[in-house]
Every structure is written in C-alpha cells, then in structure tokens.
C-alpha cells in the first residue's frame, strides 16, 4: 500500500520508513502539513500516518485541510504523537470528527504494532468502500 508519512523528526522518520518499506509498502515521507497535502494530491495514498506536532501547521490542522477534500474522506488516518491523547486535548469525539482511525502514543508503540494497525485499517476501509 502507499503510505503518506508526516513526521518532522528525520531519524524517527527513517526508522518508520525503513520498517514499512521492508514490509513491502511504499512510503512517501514529508516534514510538514503543506507539503503533505501536495504529496497526497500527487501520490493518492491508501493511508496517512501523521504526527500531531509538526513545525508550523499542526497535524490537526493538516487533517482539517485533508478531510475537506471529498476524495480523501475515506482514506484511513493514524495520528501519532509523544503526547498522550488526554494531554493533547483530543477527545474520542474530536478524533472521530477529524476522521482519525487510531491515535497511537509513540512511547508505547512498537514498529510491529504500527504494522498490525495498518493491516487492520486498510482492509476495513476497502470493505467500507465496497458496501
């Protein structure tokens, strides 16, 4: 699958990219919200992984923009951060409104868990589109 990864930390991004590419995925990595939107338009990702804290526009701002396009309403989104969900001020309702399928807390996340979450999300998306 094609994964759009928005991650401002280069070392961390290389780790996610390395793992996911090894699993057979194509990863498009961008550093900020603006270039992320551009990449989504060009590459048509199957899933988006976005860090909440980006320099400039935040991950939430990216999602408001991303979800405003009808083409991308059904694209699964994983929001990741080193900030716990409660401290990020994002309730489950707010995440649902943004169309976030999973909020992953980085310090408790292994790369294999990330891989499993992706596998769970993408088939469910395909099922939803068929129905």
């Amino acid at each position, binding site marked *: 699958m094609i994964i759009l990864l928005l991650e401002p930390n280069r070392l961390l991004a290389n780790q996610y990219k390395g793992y996911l590419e090894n699993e057979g995925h194509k990863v498009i990595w961008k550093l900020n919200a603006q270039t992320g939107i551009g990449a989504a338009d060009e590459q048509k990702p199957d899933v988006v992984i976005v860090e909440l804290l980006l320099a400039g526009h935040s991950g939430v701002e990216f999602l408001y923009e991303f979800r405003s396009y009808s083409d991308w309403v059904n694209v699964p989104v994983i929001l990741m951060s080193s900030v716990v969900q409660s401290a990020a001020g994002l309730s489950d309702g707010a995440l649902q409104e943004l169309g976030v399928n999973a909020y992953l807390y980085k310090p408790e996340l*292994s*790369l294999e868990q990330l891989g499993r979450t992706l596998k769970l999300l993408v088939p469910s998306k395909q099922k939803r589109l068929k129905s």
Partner: protein
Amino acid sequence: MAARKRRLEVENGLLFASLAEQVKEPFVQIAHAAELLRLHPGKNELEQLFTTITLTSESALKLIDGYLLNVRLQQASELPLEPVSLSSILYDTAQDLDSYARAHDCELDLQIKGKYGPVMGRHDVLRTALQSLGYAFIEAISQQENHSKLTLIARRTSKGMSTGMYSDIDTLSAQLFKQAKVLKGLARQPLSNFTAGSGAGVFVADALLARLKSPMKVSRYGGQNGLSLTLQSSGQLSLV
C-alpha cells in the same frame, strides 16, 4: 528569600516538564533502533542504527546535564564570572554538534570574526548552554523542507562580544520567543513556528545564560535569524 525559592521551584518544574516531553523522542528512537536490530539482524543499516542510538542518547543526556547544571547553579546566590576564551568554547561546541548535525542533514558553519581577548563568563555554563541551543537548532533546521545550515558566530559589537546561533528559519521572532518563554512547560509546542516539540534545548540554554546575567535574545545577522547573547570583554591581558 521564600518568594525566590518558590519562584525557582515553579521555574524548575516548568523547565522539567518541557525537558521530559523533549527526551521522549530519543527514547522512542532508541527503542525502535533496538527493534529493527532484532527484526533485521545483519542488515546493511546496522551502522546507521548504532549511530542513531549513540547520537540520540548523547543529545538527551546533554540536555539533562544542562538542566541539572542550572539547578545546581541556583543554589548559589551569586555566580562568580571568570575570563574565558569564547573562540575555544565555540570550537568545542561546533565539534560537539558536528555528528548530530550531519545525521540531520544540517550543515554546520563556524564564523569567528576578528581577534579578541577573553570574555567574562563560565566555561561550563557557556559550553553547555550553546550545546543545548545547538541541538535545538539542528532539530528545528532538520524539520524544514529546504535544508538549511546552522551558523555559530562570535563577533565584536559596541556592547561587547556577541555570540549565538543563526539559521535561515525566518519564523523565529522576538515576539515568538517572548511568548514561548511564558508557555514553556505548559504548551505542547511553545515555539510552534520554529520547531515541533517542546523546544526544551532553547529553554535550558536560556535558563543557563540567565545565571550569567547574559540573557539570550532573538537577533539578525548576515541575513539570518538567530539567538544570541552578549558577553563583556575581560580586562585580563590577551596574548593574541
């Protein structure tokens, strides 16, 4: 006295909160590097993973050391200053930051303009503050789509010797820095237009430099924005 103690406790608490948020990512990187080594032992990326572990742990430890130095310095009511060589501190700092900068695709440039004698300061405080600031700048620069370079500068001004770090990031403003100091440890991204994350390195450097009574300021030099401080020249005879 009690009011000062209370103020320092609050200040340290906020700085610690900022620091704690910042050091989470190095731990995450180390954990992922270990996982990748377990999943793909013997792969070509081995060297890169070891470098990641070394550099990220070093940067986190330096930041923690900076915080602890600040706490220790607070125990003394007055910090005696001594003549120090600014150029030697800058050379050492550039060397300390070199590998980290390279791992983040950030070019490092050291500019020491002219000849000058010792300045009044503290070697340990200045070096630790500049290291913390450097790590923060490198991370901020590496978050920019268009790569930039970090310039370490020392130059003579009408007020004394100015030293600091500069980059092409044009969102760093005096207003942003002023607001960020109020939001430190409270907001997720106090320097949101400059760097993702808590920006703890900037605040640790700011706290340390405040002990030298040389506050850090946003300044502009050579078309670049940066953070700098001014130190007074020492009366000691300089043999240049």
